[in-house]
């Protein structure tokens, strides 16, 4: 579905460096990273808003240089900013921009609006932040895209809608032909739904793996410092001593056997992100 090969982009002092990953159809990719990591720049590249300085990007085998219109036809977008005309109604906004899409489906839009409890005659500016994102989401789905690009929408959704949002995403990828890229700070959401994780830090790709591999590859160990220090140095990603004990994220191999007194758990995405970020700031052993 989506293939990035050595994509680089310089924007002022910020540099996104040699990003490569693939997203097959039928999967959800979680894009994570701290503020300023380059998530939005990467999404802008995927959406064709920015041109890469180097590398190649293709969606369904098509590139922006030759098939821009076809690619944009396939993408549905939800961005953190207000994309629509605030002084127009939802329905008019959707008609205004929907006419550029060959597959724009107004009855489907109205179905989603009703499902999200949004009135089509309401003006866009009268919506709350969460409702504006719901409308963007409805519009993105209404032209039958193959790839949804979603930039941090879940933070503004109430818990009830968040669970509906995830079930729609699951419906969307269910037939195995569509994919989703979901950038989010809320890693517990990605733990629930993502199949792949791409983790950026200061413009660099720190991790691009499927979530099952990640779960098999990493372990979080908690226990006495001296016992953790006995582990092979190359397997420790980051070790942290706190008042309550010492924790370490380690690269796990199936044959690894750990000291019985150490607590061994499969780390969450948030824990992996935390330790990897710490490692980036300097190894502490």
């Amino acid at each position, binding site marked *: 579905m989506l293939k990035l090969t050595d994509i680089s982009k310089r924007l002022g002092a910020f540099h996104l460096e040699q990003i490569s990953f693939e997203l097959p159809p039928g999967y959800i990719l979680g894009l994570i990273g701290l503020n300023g990591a380059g998530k939005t720049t990467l999404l802008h590249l995927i*959406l064709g808003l*920015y041109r890469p300085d180097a590398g190649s990007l293709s969606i369904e085998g098509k590139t922006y240089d030759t098939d821009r219109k076809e690619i944009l*036809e396939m993408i549905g977008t939800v961005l953190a900013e*207000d*994309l629509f*005309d605030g002084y127009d109604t939802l329905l008019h906004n959707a008609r*205004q*921009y929907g006419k550029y899409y060959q597959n724009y489906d107004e009855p489907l839009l109205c179905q989603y609006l009703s499902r999200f409890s949004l009135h089509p005659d309401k003006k*866009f*500016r009268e919506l709350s932040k969460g409702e504006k994102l719901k409308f963007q989401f409805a519009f993105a789905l209404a032209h039958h895209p193959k790839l949804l690009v979603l930039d941090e929408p879940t933070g503004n959704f109430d818990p009830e809608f968040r669970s509906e949002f995830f079930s729609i995403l699951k419906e969307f990828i269910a037939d195995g032909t569509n994919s989703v890229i979901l950038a989010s700070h809320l890693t517990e959401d990605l733990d629930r739904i993502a199949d792949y994780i791409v983790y950026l830090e200061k413009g660099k790709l720190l991790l691009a793996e499927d979530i099952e591999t990640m779960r098999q590859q990493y372990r979080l160990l908690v226990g006495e410092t001296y016992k953790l220090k006995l582990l092979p140095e190359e397997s420790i990603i980051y070790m942290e001593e706190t008042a309550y004990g010492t924790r370490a994220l380690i690269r796990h191999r199936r044959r690894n056997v750990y000291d019985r007194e150490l607590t061994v758990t499969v780390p969450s995405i948030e824990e992996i992100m935390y330790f990897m970020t710490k490692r980036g700031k300097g190894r502490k052993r």
Partner: protein
Amino acid sequence: MTKKILQEYAGAFRWGRIKECYKGNNWWFFLYSVTFLPIMLVGNFSRSPENFGAYFLLMLPVLYHLFVLPLQPVGLPKIMYLCPMTEEERKNYLKRTLEVKIGISLLIELAAAAVLVSLRRYSSFLLLLAFVLSIMIILATAMQERTVGSTGTLTTAREWWETGTLIVFMLEFWVLISRILWIETGGSVVSAAEKIGYTAVLFAVDLPLLLMVMSFWREQLKLRADYETAAGRETVKNSRKG
């Protein structure tokens, strides 16, 4: 496409949007200094309220254009860069936007000239000259929306140059039109030599600047059709958002 652009044009005249658009920039000061102040000066030697009215009527479309300039930027909202369009289609859309927005101001100017023609008090030479000069001001003004119109500040040499161009056109309008009004309302006619002189000024000053304005827009349409260059130049304003 034209219908959508006209809808957008009409849609910009909402009180909330106008307030939002002019808040925080010193466009009003700019508007005052380049138009109202000279109008008042001209008023002092226009001999009669009728002449001042005529001058004001000729300036009205220019004032209108200056007023709507920050409200009607020639740019695309971000969503248009996400819609399935080729760069050429976006460029054509921008070109049509420019034509419609300038065209409306020119139509208003034409209507003002038609009113004065119907009064039969002023020579066709005066009206023609005023019409041509107004067109030049409107065209030059159209270049300002990304500089003075957007932030109220001039930072680069190019912005100073573009604003300078507008001031040249405005000065030309004030000097030439006031002079002809002065002659004609004094009961004289503008001599043939003077007419040739004014025409020569038009060719010497306005033609090169017209070419410059055209080249400016050719480059701008290309830049604004691409999100990266358009966003870098802050051409897409937030005035359309709620």
